[in-house]
């Protein structure tokens, strides 16, 4: 029982990381039809920015962690905005070129990170509380899982509130459904594109800082390793659906943890099989309106 609880909570924590990456991917695709393969780079850069903050403060305090999260989010957002304005904006509706440019950017940024921070991982420490555990239903749960879950829930609620209650959120929700009709109403959706990229980049940056706490290190490949599963989550949840991404993140991560423990480390295989099954049965994903 305690093992199952540990696996479930760890799965939910990992799912929180997947969601932080997938939420941006899903919104960006939903609004703009752009598959952003450079999204993992926003995460990695956010993680390095957070690490730079924490090593300069070198006190392992909560303030240091909070500042890392803020700086990680800001750096992720700024790089995402620059990517949208300088590269993606010229390539709307040109999907092949978008893929080529974002894949190229992902490869180039990994090389850039190698050059700046080296190919070896840098190790990250945080508040001592994160290394401790608490008993939940007989299982000793590492506290960092609670942090991941708490921040991901806060990000989800923040994005939902933004989309649900602000004027701009209404434009974005409408644009995800029918971009051409938003344009026909006289709304210039390019501003919405930039904002959605910024939101996605900020969420990825936060995800990067949290991933560095979860794994204990930052490496140039950190974003790429999470991006694969985030894409799977995005497709399973339904491209463009934030709620779908949240549900799929939990389902994929929990299943992955259970399969890794109970089925001889076959977690990744099970996730891919789940993706294939969803695509066969429901090509638009759990909550997507289109394939």
């Amino acid at each position: 029982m305690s093992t199952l609880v540990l696996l479930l909570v760890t799965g939910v924590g990992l799912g929180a990381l997947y969601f932080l990456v997938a939420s941006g991917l899903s919104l960006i695709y939903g609004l703009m039809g752009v598959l952003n393969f450079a999204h993992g780079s926003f995460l990695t850069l956010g993680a390095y920015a957070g690490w730079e903050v924490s090593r300069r403060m070198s006190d392992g305090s909560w303030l240091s962690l909070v500042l890392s999260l803020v700086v990680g989010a800001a750096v992720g957002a700024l790089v995402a905005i620059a990517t949208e304005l300088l590269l993606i904006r010229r390539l709307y509706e040109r999907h092949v070129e978008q893929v080529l440019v974002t894949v190229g950017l992902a490869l180039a940024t990994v090389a850039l990170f190698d050059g700046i921070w080296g190919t070896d991982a840098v190790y990250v420490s945080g508040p001592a509380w994160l290394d401790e555990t608490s008993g939940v239903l007989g299982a000793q749960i590492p506290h960092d899982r609670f942090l991941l879950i708490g921040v991901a829930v806060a990000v989800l609620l923040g994005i939902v509130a933004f989309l649900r209650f602000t004027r701009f959120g209404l434009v974005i929700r409408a644009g995800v459904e029918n971009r051409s009709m938003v344009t026909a109403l006289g709304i210039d959706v390019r501003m919405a594109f930039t904002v959605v990229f910024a939101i996605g980049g900020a969420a990825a940056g936060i995800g990067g800082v949290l991933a560095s706490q979860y794994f204990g290190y930052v490496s140039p490949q950190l974003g790429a390793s999470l991006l694969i599963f985030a894409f799977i989550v995005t497709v399973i949840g339904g491209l463009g659906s934030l709620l779908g991404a949240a549900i799929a993140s939990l389902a994929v991560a929990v299943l992955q943890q259970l399969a890794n423990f109970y089925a001889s480390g076959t977690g990744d295989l099970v996730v891919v099989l789940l993706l294939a099954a969803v695509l066969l049965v429901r090509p638009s994903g759990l909550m997507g309106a289109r394939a």
Partner: protein
Amino acid sequence: MSTTEPGATHAHARPTGGEDVVLSATGLGLRIGGATIIDDVSLAVPRGELLGVIGPNGAGKTTLFNLLSGVARPTAGRVHLAGRDVTSSSVDARARAGLGRTFQTSNLFVGLTVRENVRLAAQAARGGAVSLLRFPRRQDAATVDALARLEQVGLAHHAETLAGGLSHGDKRKLEIAMLLAAGPEVILLDEPMAGVGSADVPGLVEVIRSLQREHGATVLLVEHHMDVVLDLSDRLAVMHHGSLLACADPETVMADPTVQSAYLGESA
């Protein structure tokens, strides 16, 4: 072929460009590959007119709307809106300049509520759509306007219903409520009666009539229901094989032997 003068069946003169002309097309053409889709169409629509655009399927009516609204770019000719050349303007720029349209198939935000659909149009008209963190208050001008428009088209009781859950007739009414909220000077209605049950037609006709008479809008109406077009239109423009065959008052057009042989004699 060009036809512009109100009252003239086959006028070949260019639009006069008089002050009352709010929308005009001059020598408008669209060629894709070797095919001519729209051929040298010239139109001048006076302010406040309701112009019916008829023609068999494939005559180029919707394509003409696409060229006028900026969905497609012409390969020849110019489009002027309120005296301004908008030929190279985007769809959203033309909408901001006062040109609104509906599409053949319902083009709503089906995942938003009826109120949110109209509110979006109202806030777009007020230019507040890009105010990043402004929260729509329950009683702000755009919301009040949206609810008034819903009342006007008889959809107020569906305000909190998801647009996707409306009947087809109500969806068309919602589109018109959005147009009312956006407040365009010129409205292009592309088959607003398509798929609408016969019981809903009279109500929709009245709503369209009110666009012109109560709101002073200039309306271009593509519609296959001839009784509706004849009832509503001040003038009729007849499209045939991508060209403008005639443009005059309905009686003159219906009596025109060329129109009868080219269009009314054909199965639509």
